[in-house]
């Protein structure tokens, strides 16, 4: 019995390690390739650790390809839209959890219902609308559309605000705080874990967003990372070393954020069941 148990344990590890290899291998190959000189990118047999490593691709990305600018654009857009999304979704969630008002359930079910709508269905009218409002080709246009995901995050936060004991909020109101102070000083701090999860989802969502940015932005000075990387692929016969140097830098923050906040992340996925 004991022996067979050990054997199944070993077998489990072997299968899981093989699977983990398949999950990680493409990333390792990407990173390895990003350090290869252009002439060796396609070398066979394939190597994960370059025989003659170079930083050329990274230097090339930042000097001749304005990669720093694209990185900055992405950082600005992702940070701003995360702040706006989290704030607006918290306000919405608090109102749905704590107040009665006419139209409450209608609005709630409208927001819930539109989650089923494929986001690309909205792409064409959003494009026309952004053109009419002169929001094409602008970072603001990206921030606004990314922040429109607030109702989705509201659903994740609502439960947290419902669980706050009414006494706590009453006490704050008795002390003479208005509803906004109570929200800001009492409710928000209590919802911190949920806010952390929502912030991560919102940030990663904007950081990785491709389709709207690709459609709305034509001026290269306003490119974000995903569309810049795609540009590198299309330019002069795909310099894979350059593409993967850029990809490595773009992916690094997401993987770091994920590993650092893993607990929040997995809990958020399990409870709210969000697809990342």
């Amino acid at each position, binding site marked *: 019995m004991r022996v067979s148990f050990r054997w199944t344990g070993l077998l*489990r*590890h072997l299968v899981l390690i093989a699977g983990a290899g398949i*999950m*990680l291998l*493409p*990333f390792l*190959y*990407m990173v390895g*390739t990003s350090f290869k000189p252009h002439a060796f990118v396609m070398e*066979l047999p394939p190597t994960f650790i370059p025989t003659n490593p170079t930083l050329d691709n990274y230097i090339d990305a930042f000097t001749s390809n304005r990669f720093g600018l694209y990185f900055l654009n992405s950082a600005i857009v992702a940070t701003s839209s995360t702040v706006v999304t989290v704030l*607006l979704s918290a*306000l*919405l969630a608090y*109102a*749905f*959890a*704590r*107040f*009665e*008002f006419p139209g409450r359930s209608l*609005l709630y079910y*409208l927001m819930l219902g539109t989650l*089923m*709508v*494929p*986001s*690309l*269905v*909205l*792409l*064409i009218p*959003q494009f*026309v*609308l952004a053109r009419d409002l002169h929001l094409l080709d602008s970072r603001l246009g990206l921030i606004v559309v990314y922040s*429109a995901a*607030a109702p989705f995050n*509201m659903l994740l936060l609502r439960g947290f605000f*419902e669980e706050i004991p*009414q006494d706590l*909020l009453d006490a704050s109101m008795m002390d003479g705080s208005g*509803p906004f102070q109570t929200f800001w000083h009492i409710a928000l701090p209590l919802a911190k874990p949920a806010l952390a999860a929502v912030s991560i989802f919102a940030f990663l969502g904007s950081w*990785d967003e*491709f389709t709207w940015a690709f459609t709305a932005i034509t001026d290269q000075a306003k490119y974000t990372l995903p569309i810049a*990387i*795609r540009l590198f*692929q*299309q330019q002069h016969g795909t310099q894979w070393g350059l593409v*993967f140097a850029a990809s490595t830098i*773009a*992916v690094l923050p*997401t*993987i770091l954020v*994920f*590993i650092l906040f*893993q607990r929040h*992340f*997995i809990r958020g*996925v399990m409870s709210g*069941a969000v697809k*990342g």
Partner: protein
Amino acid sequence: MQSSASPAVPSGATRRAFGRSRRARQMMIAYLFILPGTFLFVVWTLYPLLDAFRMSFYEWNLIKPSTFIGLDNYRRALHDDVFWRSVRNTLFYVVVTVPGQMILGLAIALLLDSPLRGRTLYRTIYYIPVVTSWVVVSLIFTFLFNSQAGFVNWVLKDGLGVIDQNIRWLRDPLMARIVIAILGVWKGVGWTMVIFLAGLQSIPQSLYEAATVDGAGTWRRLRDITLPLIRNTALFILVILTIGAFQVFISVFIMTADDPLNRNDVVLTYMYSNAFEFLDLGYGAAIAYMLAALVFLLSVVQIRVLKRKVEY
């Protein structure tokens, strides 16, 4: 929902005296809270949703003034062979990736469901592709599945010797569809695993203990306890994955960009090229709406059909 939302109210007497004005005040406050988020929602989600529906009845191309053409865009799609090919390609993706992710995700979750050294590490590793940008993983797979000097061809030909000639992965329509589906499963399996794990952890340990005492082996415990009890989790995953798979876009857009004939178009890439390459926005909107309707219907049907069985 209703009871927990009762606003802060002082004692009974003041309540009656100031009830009406208080309530009006509460309402005002509530509206102030929801105003900014609702404004964005109405302008950038609700209005575009209705506008897309309207546009689907117009010949609409950004340059000429648009004209109402009734159901012509929809009629045109039904007789459009390229549209039907894109539907078939999308169905292929759905039929391969949804069961693929569910079976593999469940298998990994079962392997991780009991105490095991390095459990968190495995979970983290399997989840990394889920959080990585679609653009980046699509480019990595394009590179790995290169038709000549690609990594996968090298492994299959020189490494394992299972093929004599390089496979023209992304240049061959069937192979391209397979590679895109492999990417979809690889990227999504970590999510499916995490949700299945949540479902598995909600099964009381005592059930397994009782079954073991009764002499049930691993396989019987899996069939008679685990599978029936994670049915709702599986249903949830099935719905979410199906909705997601019908919306496959970025991977196809990036990986098959150099195919001049667009033989690998899925519904949304076909919608995209109609709208933004040929500037036929009305036709694009009609295609998008048909997809949205299909996705909506499917999720309703899935929930209905599977719920009935669970009740029994």
